């Protein structure tokens, strides 16, 4: 609701903002743009060691780029805070030159025409990706192409994560299973066998977030949005199957909801839960928790979310960086930083500090022994190479839709009728979509 109010306010104040506004109109041809000596700012969401690594990379860029571009990285708050800061900045015409944004947030910014189309830079013969483009994971690049805005590219990925199944291998083997479940039936059987109320053990810690719902739906070959950007499809067979499965698992007490943020990691480390589904960004935290768990370290790993599709279909996510409209020189300088940060060398440093996936295939060769030292990361990375990576809807208003999806999932688990709830969810999501549409 807060976001909606803010969004409406932006619309009302947009005209006023243009008075001071960011320069707009037609940009000169990129070939004639000279970014030499430009100073730009980059609003990011990273804290502590991630912030330190990013600042080191930016410093490296500042010291080595041939145009003498100077970038000042600024922590703008966590995602929601950064979004509010950016919306306010757009209204006041004081945008940064580069900003971290999820795809749906970028779409919200673009509803005010605030962002540059990065296609102009990617494809440019002088400044673009050129032959290097094929080195980027195409699925990652496609995430930022937004059908709501005629295929404009509103962001560029600096890194990505996957939603995967985390499993306790020792526990599975004790129960007579040789590995993780490949499909939902196997998953159900394993959860049932693992559940032991006397020991407070259960099969799966239910994550009711929208990303997890998306992961379940695509694992059954479904989608939650129309490819042309015209709306959501939450009342599908795959969605109903997903909800029915989870409702059954929850009703039979083979699973529990996650009670506190990251509480499932502790339960996993203490052999209280056999499976969790989480982001690969959590791998080091799982590592740390398992090493310190009640029963000591054990064998655990990650696998594709159980699926009925031929190849695993995995939810791939992560914030991109968007280039707000400013001057051609500043925009080009911002693009050159983005390009630098996605070179294999900086990418390798970024991976080692954050455990995110690189966006370029050739980064793997630069990772040295990182992959062998982090076997679960390697498994996840191999899954990335051998799966159909799918992204959540990049539409304006998706943040509100995510809240609605989570609420609907919880209602269903608590006993609400699946058909009626999904019908309502579909209607609500599409209403939000219409209201937030550019």
């Amino acid at each position, binding site marked *: 609701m*807060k976001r909606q*109010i*803010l969004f409406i*306010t*932006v619309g009302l*104040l947009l005209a*006023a*903002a243009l008075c*001071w506004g960011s320069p707009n109109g037609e940009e000169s041809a990129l070939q004639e743009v000279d970014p030499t000596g430009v100073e730009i*700012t980059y609003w990011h969401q990273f*804290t*502590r060691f991630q912030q330190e690594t990013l600042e080191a990379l930016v410093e490296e860029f500042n010291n080595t780029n041939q145009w003498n571009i100077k970038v000042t990285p*600024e*922590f*703008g*708050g*966590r995602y929601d*805070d*950064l979004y*509010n*800061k950016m*919306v*306010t*900045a757009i*209204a*006041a015409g*004081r945008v940064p030159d580069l900003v971290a944004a999820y795809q749906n947030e970028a779409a919200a910014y673009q509803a005010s025409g605030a962002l540059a189309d990065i296609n102009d830079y990617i494809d440019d013969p002088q400044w673009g990706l050129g032959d290097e483009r094929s080195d980027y994971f195409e699925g990652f690049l496609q995430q930022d192409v937004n059908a709501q805005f005629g295929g404009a590219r509103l962001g560029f990925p600096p890194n990505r*994560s996957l939603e995967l199944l985390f499993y306790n291998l020792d526990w599975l083997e004790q129960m007579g299973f040789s590995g993780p479940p490949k499909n939902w039936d196997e998953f159900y059987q394993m959860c049932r066998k693992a559940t032991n109320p006397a020991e407070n053990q259960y099969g799966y810690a239910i994550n009711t977030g929208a990303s997890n719902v998306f992961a379940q739906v695509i694992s059954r070959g479904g989608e939650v949005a129309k490819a042309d950007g015209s709306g959501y499809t939450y009342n599908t067979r795959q969605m109903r199957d997903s909800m029915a499965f989870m409702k059954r698992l929850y009703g039979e007490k083979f699973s529990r909801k996650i009670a506190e*943020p*990251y509480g499932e*990691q*502790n339960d996993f*480390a*203490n052999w209280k839960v056999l499976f969790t589904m*989480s*982001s690969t*960004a*959590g791998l*080091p*935290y*799982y590592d*740390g*928790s398992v090493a*310190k*768990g*009640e029963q000591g370290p054990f064998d655990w790993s990650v696998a594709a979310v159980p699926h009925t599709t031929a190849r695993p279909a995995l939810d791939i996510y992560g914030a991109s960086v968007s280039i707000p409209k400013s001057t051609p020189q500043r925009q080009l300088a911002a693009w050159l930083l983005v390009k630098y940060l996605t070179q294999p060398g900086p990418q390798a440093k970024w991976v080692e500090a954050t455990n995110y996936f690189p966006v370029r295939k050739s980064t793997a060769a630069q990772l040295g022994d990182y992959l062998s030292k982090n076997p679960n990361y390697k498994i996840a990375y191999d899954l990335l190479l051998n799966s159909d990576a799918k992204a959540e809807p990049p539409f304006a208003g998706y943040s509100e839709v995510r809240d609605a999806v989570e609420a609907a999932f919880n209602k269903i688990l608590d006993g609400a009728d699946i058909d009626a709830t999904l019908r309502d969810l579909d209607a609500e999501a599409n209403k939000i979509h219409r209201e937030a549409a550019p």
Partner: protein
Amino acid sequence: MVKERSPWLQAVLLLLLILGAFVSIIPFLFMVSHSLKTIAETITRSSAIPFDPKFWPRVPQWSNYRVAWQEARFGLYFRNSVIITAITVGGIVFTSSLSAYAFAKLRFVGRDLIFTILLSTLMIPQTVLLIPNFIIVAKLGWIDRLPALTVPFLASAFHIFLLRQFFSQIPNELIEVAKIDGATHLRSLISIVLPLSKAPIFTVVFLSFIYTWNLLQWPLVVTQTPRWRPITVGLSMFITEAGPETHLRMAGAVIAVLPVITVYFIAQRQFTEAITRSGLKE
């Protein structure tokens, strides 16, 4: 004549109050106990009941506070918060007492209408004010400067209302007598009204202190560097994307909340008295 409650009823009420107080204090104790645990203990020794030994650390890890202090640059942020809060609270007390006196003791055309308009501003959600306030601050060139964090909060309709209610209860005769003796309105405010209003003034101090101390969104919007960022920004550094560092987050929370608790203990008696006398309910 007040009818006395039966001892049994009193005992039950007392028991309920004790239970309520106990439940209320659990989150605070949880914060303190987890701030003193190792990261391993936050994983393996966790309980929601203070009587359970698992609720408490085996050996208190005081070093968590040092680590939290250093990793989140709490030194700088703490200093900033103290300065921002001191200026803001002082400003609020100053502007609110002057305004409240005017609304309570002076007669002028449109007084009630202006007061009603002032009260109606309380109904505007803060989110809506974010952008206009930011535009004003940006136009004044205050981005990333101390005035951006203090000036917009120096006047508060709520606190004017609160003080006005108290000032209205002070007999006008006292002001009239002072006036006969040659006192100006400012002298009456300083020498008569304010000394009689310690409780509400403490309440204003306490409430505005908490509000200012806990601000996060506005400081993030109007600052670009750590130079004037408050302690809440430091605390947000411990919100990680994919995993918990509960011990450090809780240590940071204890550090951030200590001044609020200190101020509360100082102002507790006056605060309670003011709430009782005003009929306000939390």
